[in-house]
């Protein structure tokens, strides 16, 4: 990463551009998205989106390199200093999330090209790329900003564009799924902004760092307590924390394949990051995290979510829905790590943000490719798919093994980290819960593997792989699943720095 930063500095004009990278990360996709409306042509808008999002990925890598080399980056929008103006702050925690979001965004685009041409009517394809770029902008904005209200604005940008993206799905039920997500997402965003309003009422500030220092003086008031509750529940809705997850399965299942890949791998991750930021930075100096018992609530909801999601996933006949419920289960692990509230637990959460993005991206890509070729994702239609589409099924298998948490895959790294974090606490029952929920994952992954490899393909079925544009991205993601599963040191080290950036400033924080 630092080598990457050094490479960037050797480019022409790098010295002039470098201080503005935090804002360019957001502004480039934001301002280039509307250009799609002028282009209108499906192929041209695809090329445009690809160029822009790969640039965004490049910027994210440079930013991560810079943060790891020299620490916190602060950018003042309009040159207004912090409590008055909006400030962007990048530390290890959000630099990691920026890389995850842009990497998935970039790798999904070649995949999207073929998939979208099949699933979305041609006159609407340019809208897909427009919304895709806006969604990416929103997610990057949530991650970068250090202003509580600005976060809400980006939350709305990403949410509104993802409602549109989901509703582009071919199945008419995509509309109801999107509408349901709209209602729940709007509730979540409203709760968040109510909470921010209450904090503003008590402190007169919207800047996160400023709130961090001002809130402890008023943290005994009921207003701040209510603000904390509103913010946690609001973001909990966006990240599909267990009882608030009901919008997720249909939204993922009926969205176009490329959208499922992108949203499943990024949107909930960014919401998890936002909750981490609010709990550990904004409210970090107040004692609310301990006094309200929210840590225990998060641990319990995380564990219940792990089991409930995996259990429901077992009974799904639609593989996309199965993967969606598996996401609910995987979000449970992240929430659990957050509840542990130690550097080790947060490292587990953050490394799982990356690991889950990689493996769920690969799984959704594989199942999207199956849909592209055979036109169905129902379990009974997948008979013998392992012989008809060997590469795609192999990718699904790798992703599935990782969902279970098999050694040599990324899923193992994050679960191992979480088990260790739980044992540090002496919570052996949490460690046991992680192992048992993995057993449930074996069941739902096995159901697909059994049908795919052990059942005979239907009569007359020919061997036909997905097109190259879909195959290469999913093989890359499957490769990453294994690569970072064998070499977990890099990701764990960066996640550890991110966790320290979040928790380091907490006086009562347990290192």
């Amino acid at each position: 990463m630092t080598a990457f930063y050094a490479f960037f500095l050797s480019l022409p004009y790098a010295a002039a551009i470098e201080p503005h990278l935090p804002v360019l990360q957001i502004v480039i996709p934001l301002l280039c998205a509307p250009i799609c409306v002028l282009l209108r042509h499906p192929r041209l808008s695809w090329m445009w989106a690809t160029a822009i999002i790969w640039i965004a990925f490049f910027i994210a890598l440079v930013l991560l390199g810079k943060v790891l080399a020299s620490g916190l980056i602060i950018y003042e929008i309009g040159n207004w200093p912090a409590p008055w103006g909006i400030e962007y702050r990048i530390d290890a925690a959000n630099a990691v999330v920026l890389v995850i979001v842009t990497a998935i965004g970039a790798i999904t685009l070649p995949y999207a090209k073929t998939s979208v041409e099949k699933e979305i009517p041609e006159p609407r394809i340019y809208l897909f790329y427009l919304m895709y770029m806006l969604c990416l902008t929103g997610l990057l904005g949530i991650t970068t900003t250090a202003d509580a209200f600005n976060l809400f604005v980006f939350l709305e940008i990403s949410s509104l564009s993802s409602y549109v993206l989901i509703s582009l799905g071919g199945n008419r039920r995509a509309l109801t799924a999107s509408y349901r997500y709209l209602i729940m997402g709007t509730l979540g965003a409203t709760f968040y902004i109510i909470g921010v309003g209450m904090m503003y009422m008590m402190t007169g500030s919207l800047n996160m760092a400023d709130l961090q220092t001002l809130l402890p003086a008023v943290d005994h008031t009921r207003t701040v307590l209510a603000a904390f509750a509103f913010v946690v529940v609001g973001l909990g809705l966006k990240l599909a924390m267990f009882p608030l997850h009901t919008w997720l399965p249909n939204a993922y299942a009926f969205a176009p394949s490329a959208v499922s890949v992108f949203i499943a791998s990024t949107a909930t991750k960014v919401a998890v990051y936002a909750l981490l930021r609010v709990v550990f930075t904004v409210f970090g100096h107040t004692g609310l995290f301990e006094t309200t018992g929210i840590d225990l609530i998060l641990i319990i909801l995380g564990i219940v979510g792990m089991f409930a999601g995996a259990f429901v996933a077992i009974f799904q006949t639609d593989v996309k829905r199965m993967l969606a419920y598996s996401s609910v289960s995987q979000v449970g692990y992240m929430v659990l790590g957050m509840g542990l509230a130690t550097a080790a637990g947060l490292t587990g959460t953050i490394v799982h943000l990356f690991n889950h993005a990689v493996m769920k991206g690969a799984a959704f890509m594989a199942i999207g490719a199956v849909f592209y070729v055979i036109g169905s994702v129902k379990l009974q239609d997948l008979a013998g798919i392992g012989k008809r589409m060997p590469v795609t099924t192999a990718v699904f298998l790798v992703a599935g093994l990782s969902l279970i948490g098999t050694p040599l895959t990324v899923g193992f790294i994050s679960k191992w980290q979480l088990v260790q974090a739980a044992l540090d606490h002496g919570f052996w029952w949490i460690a046991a819960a992680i192992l048992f929920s993995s057993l449930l994952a074996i069941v739902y992954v096995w159901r697909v593997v059994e049908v795919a490899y052990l059942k005979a393909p239907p009569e007359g079925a020919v061997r036909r792989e997905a097109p190259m544009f879909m195959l290469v991205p999913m093989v890359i993601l499957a490769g990453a699943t294994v690569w970072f599963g064998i070499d977990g040191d890099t990701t764990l080290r960066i996640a550890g720095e991110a966790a320290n950036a979040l928790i380091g400033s907490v006086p009562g924080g347990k290192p």
Partner: protein
Amino acid sequence: MMHRKVVLRVVSKFLIPPILLFALYVQFHGDFGPGGGFQAGVIFGSGFILYAILFGVDMAKRVLPPWSTRLLLVVGVLTYGLTGVAGLLLGGNYLDYNVLAHDPLHGQHYGILIVELGVGITVAAAMITIFNVFAGQTGGD
């Protein structure tokens, strides 16, 4: 049907130009008094919507065809965003208006005027587009 309602048509013909003019006043007087881009955009859009209600969406679309509102949506956003980029190119931070003119006071003045103009254009175009989509049920194009 509508051509019988002479009073409505005549009164609206009297009203629409002042509505549009008032929108421009709210737009460009926004930095001295109440108002600004959003309000101005809504007022401007409502002038067109009033016309469409009384004379039909088809007539309104002859005045402002769908491709033009779509173009205006983009132009408005880009006006806002590129003002920020201009700040970058002139050596300031993003959306730093100080560097837009020879002295900061004028810079701030120009900056906010241009940015609010962008907001106004986008809001007006969005209002008209949303109305057209619902009224025409043709998907806006």
